């Protein structure tokens, strides 16, 4: 009996340590898992993702990844990296992400609607890729977004009206796509000009009809001039 109880307590202790270790590994690395899911879906001929080692405790040492003081990812900078393949819904798990820079690649597929979960996102740059499908209306949830640049893709469908609720938006570029329908002019879109929407053949820009010129009313009523009746011809 005396021999068995230390054995039981030791193995129980070992089991607890194992569980705790696995648990902490999983918990601490969920953002690493999300990024790794992206790496799996991308084709990377230049090996820019070579440093992305999913066995590390967090992705904060990976190149092109920036973290904050709590080891949570704030920036993902993979512009002009010759990447192809698709984006993944797991990107929506990077809850502290502020800058998502994926421009100038050959990424195909759709914009995941899960990107609408990135409540802290300030910059969403996926311009100059080969994205298709609609702009998810969930992007209207990105209430801190300042830069939304999706130009030079093959996005289709209409511009979601939810984007007009993002009051922080400073730069919008949806040009060179295949969007259609009407361009909103309300909310934050009042400050966007056709330059944000050019080269979308099916997109209807707001028609500018200048109001009729308002004549400054004279203070004196001028009697209308009536021409005198023509004098009858002498017989």
């Amino acid at each position, binding site marked *: 009996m005396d021999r068995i109880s230390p054995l039981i307590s030791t193995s129980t202790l070992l089991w607890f340590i194992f569980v705790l270790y696995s648990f902490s590994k999983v918990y601490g690395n969920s953002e690493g898992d999300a990024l790794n899911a992206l790496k799996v879906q991308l084709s990377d001929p230049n090996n820019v993702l070579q440093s992305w080692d999913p066995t590390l405790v967090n992705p904060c040492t990976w190149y092109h990844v920036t973290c904050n003081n709590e080891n949570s990812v704030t920036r993902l900078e993979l512009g002009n990296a010759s990447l192809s393949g698709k984006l993944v819904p797991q990107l929506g798990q990077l809850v502290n992400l502020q800058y998502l820079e994926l*421009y100038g690649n050959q990424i195909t597929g759709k914009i995941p609607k899960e990107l609408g979960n990135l409540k802290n996102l300030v910059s969403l740059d996926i311009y100059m890729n080969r994205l298709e499908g609609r702009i998810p209306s969930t992007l209207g949830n990105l209430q801190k977004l300042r830069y939304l640049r999706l130009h030079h893709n093959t996005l289709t469908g209409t511009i979601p009206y939810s984007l007009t609720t993002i009051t922080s938006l400073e730069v919008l570029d949806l040009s060179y796509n295949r969007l259609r329908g009407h361009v909103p002019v309300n909310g934050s879109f009042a400050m966007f000009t056709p330059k944000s929407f050019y080269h979308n053949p099916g997109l209807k820009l707001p028609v500018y009809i200048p*109001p009729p010129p308002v004549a400054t009313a004279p203070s*004196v009523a001028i009697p209308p001039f009536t021409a005198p009746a023509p004098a009858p011809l002498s017989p």
Partner: protein
Amino acid sequence: MAIHDRSKMERNSILRVRLRMLIMLACFATIKATEADISCLRSIKESLEDPSHIFSSWDFNYMYEGFICTFAGVECWHDDNIVISIHLAGKKLRGSFPVGIKNCTNMATLDLSSNYISGPIPSDLGDGLDFIVDLNLSNNSLSGPIPRSIVNWRYINVLRLDNNNLTGQIPSDLTALDRIKVFNVTNNRLSGPVPIFSNGDFSAESYGNNLELCGGPLKACKDDNKHDDEGFFLSGYANNSGLCGGPLKSCKNEDDDDLFLSGFEVGFPLFTILNRG
């Protein structure tokens, strides 16, 4: 068969030449936009004295794709040498308004507020800057009129010209600006009627402390304006000694009319009295 192949080849080569020309044209077009933006920023640096050395990062000696996007106070659409905004508020800049600013044809925001910029706003500023949305020139020493050409800024949302020495009238055609939300011309030397904006008048706070602005939320424009109109029509009737009435001296007939009326006033009661019998 050989002839068919040859014409097909010719067609292909023509297409290739056309494609090459198109690509060159497209490249030229983008380069042109870039050159305009570069000349815009050069004009700013050359026109203004810079005691706080904000322009030290504005180095035009080594040009590369997107180099102007690294300049302090300058933001690009993306990293493409196309300026979207210039923020140079409170930098102690001194000199005349840089005339080359209108070459930043894709600019949406320009903030030159709280500097020492003097002289007139270029009269053709409105002919460029088609996409300007937010323009702040407040707290400078700008003089002269508000250019009429700014009516071309159809997307302008915020226009701040307050705290300057601007004179003359506010162009009445500003009524056409249907996106404008903030319009401030306080603390200038403007006069005349304020524009009637299509989305409703601004409050009097937009216009305070000027020379003699009137209309809109302010007091109605005075009879002085009436005299101006009369003066206009007077000149149309000049040198005709027989003309009278309207804006001219009153006709003698009017005196006769008065006489007629007073005669009626006497005659009618007399008539009724006399006919009572």
